[in-house]
């Protein structure tokens, strides 16, 4: 129920209270309105979603867990290059700003995969980077991950019962510090939430519809950037040829590549031809950073 509806429902009670109250001071009226607004606000927050700030803290912990399983690359040039492409893609995504911003990091492994931790930290493996053939394809992979962030797919992996339980601890009145008992309960729920997201990202993967939606969003983002949106398709076709050789990775956490190709094939937006000088400039910097 929306705040407006709740406010309308509360209005008769407020007026009745006013009609019966001592109207000797304007301060009393203000107090009554304040009380009514509190009721409206608390009721509307009873089943609120996870805020962007909370998503950020869950994402940090998920990222910390991922970095417990993989090594960060020491390749400074490649890190800078991936960050520049990633930030360009993020600015053109459906959600250019998140609470803590977008960050991109490379995991040093032959496994072919990429992960979007809730809130904005995106990991791509060096194996995945080596599977791309151009800057546009690398941008396509990052745009797909940025779409998972803007659609909050990671945070959606948290079991609803867990979040409902967290809300009962969090309560509805303003407070930044919790008692030790409350913190202990929240930490346990926090830990469970991290496990929910981690399992989805690294072990089980998102649902088929979430992956298709991320692909569809990625081609739109690529077009907005000025990248070739067909790059996602060419990348998926190469991935399909190589599928199975990586042992797990993206083949374990994503729908069959052939299905993704079939889904996206008719949904590539038409764009103006890219200037040959731009193609050349991208090829040169891709070659310098990746090969």
């Amino acid at each position: 129920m929306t705040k407006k509806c709740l406010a309308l429902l509360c209005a008769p009670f407020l007026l009745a209270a006013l009609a019966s109250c001592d109207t000797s001071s304007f301060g009393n009226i203000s107090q009554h309105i304040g009380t009514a607004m509190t009721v409206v606000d608390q009721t509307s927050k009873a089943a609120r979603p996870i805020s962007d700030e909370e998503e950020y803290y869950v994402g940090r912990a998920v990222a910390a867990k991922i970095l417990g399983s993989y090594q960060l690359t020491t390749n400074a040039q490649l890190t800078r290059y991936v960050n520049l492409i990633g930030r360009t893609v993020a600015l053109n995504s459906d959600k250019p700003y998140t609470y803590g911003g977008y960050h991109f990091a490379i995991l040093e492994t032959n496994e072919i995969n990429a992960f979007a931790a809730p809130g904005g930290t995106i990991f791509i493996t060096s194996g995945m980077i080596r599977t791309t053939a151009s800057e546009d394809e690398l941008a396509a992979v990052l745009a797909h991950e940025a779409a998972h962030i803007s659609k909050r797919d990671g945070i959606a992996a948290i079991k609803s019962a867990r979040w409902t339980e967290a809300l009962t601890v969090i309560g509805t009145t303003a407070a930044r510090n919790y008692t030790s008992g409350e913190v202990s309960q929240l930490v346990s729920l926090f830990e469970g939430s991290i496990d929910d997201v981690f399992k989805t990202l690294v072990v089980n993967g998102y649902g088929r519809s979430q992956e298709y939606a991320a692909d569809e969003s990625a081609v739109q983002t690529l077009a907005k950037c000025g990248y070739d949106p067909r790059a996602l398709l060419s990348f998926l076709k190469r991935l399909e040829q190589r599928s199975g050789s990586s042992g797990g990775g993206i083949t374990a956490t994503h729908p069959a590549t052939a299905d993704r190709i079939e889904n996206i094939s008719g949904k590539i937006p038409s764009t103006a031809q890219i200037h040959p000088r731009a193609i050349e400039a991208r090829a040169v910097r891709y070659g310098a950073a990746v090969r």
Partner: protein
Amino acid sequence: MMKKAIFLSLIMVFTATAALADTVTVITKENAIREYAKFFAPVKANVRYNDRLEALSMEGDWYKVKCGPSIGYIHRSAVEKRVVAVPASYSRKGSSVSESEAALAGKGFNPQVEATYKKQHPEMKFGLVDSVERYPVPERDIAQFIVAGGLRQP
């Protein structure tokens, strides 16, 4: 009877005034008010999480806002619109943040929860996460990268 009618009229005016006061609240750790509605436009003022800005109009994906003496633009994804304004007596004293907004700020999974979790799980690589988050990518470099690669300015 007359008194009650006057007070009821006052409430209606009071409520209408409150509803008209349109504000947006910053929902990113930090952000900027830009001179015009573009990502790389010059910065007129810096804002932080939970700062409230007066929304003047909307231009595409950008809000034209007033922040202190500065008027400029902020992207819609950096703010949250709150149409239900609240009376002054309902706001926290000495703060620009109303209680309804502050109720969410720092609540739930917050730095206190993360700190306790970290103590219980020293094996978690939060130090590396901090280094990933601190990796500098200046706006100027992104803008140059876009131009050099023949990409479109967002």
